[in-house]
């Protein structure tokens, strides 16, 4: 059967409490984000065998590897493209990756051509030092070219 003003009690109660914008800061302080939120991966240097499984499994193609036939190599990560899914940790055969929590990642603005957007995960053997620095400048240049193409297309 039909009645009128069924929600009258609730509406008056909420009106007496005042606008929600007064209480919302207190509610945010009571519910912080959970402790085990995960962001980007980190590799333990002693365990990595340079097999390349993490490159094949990544859904967004954001991990790159360069190596030679002996045991030397380096692995680079593009931070803006990583979607924090955790596949590299699940499928690594020697358990060398652990997912870290980096709270500053949500406040920066990614633009592909500053040096904070690229992270060197591991470098072994003869690839430390100069080779790693040159790789960083190559990546920044390639990122700058991509941005220029998009600006040209937009006109």
């Amino acid at each position, binding site marked *: *059967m*039909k*009645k*009128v003003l069924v*929600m009258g009690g609730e509406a008056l109660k909420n009106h007496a409490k005042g606008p929600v914008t007064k209480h919302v800061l207190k509610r945010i302080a009571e519910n912080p984000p959970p402790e*085990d939120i995960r962001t980007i991966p980190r590799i333990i240097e002693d365990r990595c065998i340079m097999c390349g499984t993490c490159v094949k499994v990544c*859904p967004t193609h954001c991990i790159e590897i360069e190596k030679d036939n002996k045991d030397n190599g380096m692995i680079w990560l593009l931070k803006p493209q990583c979607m924090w899914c955790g*596949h590299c940790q699940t499928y690594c055969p020697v358990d060398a990756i652990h997912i870290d929590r980096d709270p500053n990642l949500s406040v920066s603005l990614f633009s592909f051509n500053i040096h904070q957007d690229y992270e060197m995960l591991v470098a072994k053997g003869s690839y430390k030092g100069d080779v790693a620095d040159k790789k960083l400048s190559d990546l920044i240049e390639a990122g700058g070219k991509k941005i220029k193409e998009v600006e040209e297309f937009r006109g």
Partner: protein
Amino acid sequence: MTEQYRSRFRTLTDGSDAPPGADHHIFIGPQHPWAEEPAHFIIHLKGERVVEADIRIGFNLRGIEKAMENKTWRQNTMLIPRACGICSAVHQNVYVRLAEKLAGIEDQISERAKLIRMFSLEAERIHSHILWYGILAHDAGFDTMLHVTWRDREIILDIVEDFSGNRVNPALMLIGGVKRDIPKEKADRAQPMLDKLIKQVEYHKKVFTEEASIRNRLEDVGILTKEDAKKVTPNGPTGRGSGLPFDVRKATPYELYDKIDWNLVYYTEGDILATTMVRLDETLESLQMCKQILYQLESTQGELLARVKQKIPEGNYFARGEAPRGEDVHYGIANGTDTPERYKIRAPSLGNIDATLKRMDGEYVADMPVILRSYDPCFSCTNRVMVINEVTGEKMILNQDEFARKAIKAKKYNRPFF
């Protein structure tokens, strides 16, 4: 039958191919933020009544089926839940079950992994239904219900964020099991929150059945009888409101749905109030199921992930799942390598469009926002409605809020729309 058949899916939209008996036509434009398909509706009118309604689709084509043929089976696990914004857990679940059946490991999945998957699916159903009936109340002119229901929806979003780290796309499933565990402290924190939400949803149900201003707007509007429903084949809660009692979880059970006790919900009246009551009752059933799952998780052990090879042998399989909006259908073919050969997805809203357009024959223009909301799409706030009078040639542009307000005034004071 093929000679007199007039298709409701149009290609061009100048309105020149009108059915006989129509005076003028209205467009409703294509801007939806998170529905499965943004659509362009063309409604042919005679005076105040609708003669027929047409649609044009294709604005959100992203090429997912072609992109899946270049990536491996493991990489596609994270591409599939992005096919839809709010049904994302169900798409990933059907994909993972299909890949496990083709690889031949479907009886090595442990019970604990299946229970965690079922919790994610039911939590998503609760979230989607509460969101839907809040927006339906807003379209019918009852704004208080929108604010109260969206305040209560934050409870279930807090539970999902605690379990998986993300409010909307949990993406907890992998081929062979799940990614994360639910330890005992988190389950103990979630139980009193679920109890509080059950009391609030029972209050919402009392408002929808007793309050006169919502009932006048929804009752006896847009009736779809059972014989008509058998011809146009709706699926999901739209079909269950018209008397077709079929649900994928009971018809061909998957995961552990035949070991938990729950009831099938269906009504026979066929108007919009019946589909609303179907979704309200389903929310209450899902909340009871979530409590049972958390209770059973304490006493079940098992490993979380089973071993799968990278290459999947040849074969083809057809799998379905019950999304909050209907029946979700996937058909996959594998060819022995690590990329799929052909993968076909049909989202549930596409099958409901024809039934909704048939509901509008003979109704008033002012009932249209409520009927278009009833199969669960979403229009954005930057909609434009353009009214063209074919006799005098004058045009009038309204946007979404003005259109809804004019419709509310026309129904309240029993006045013509224009």
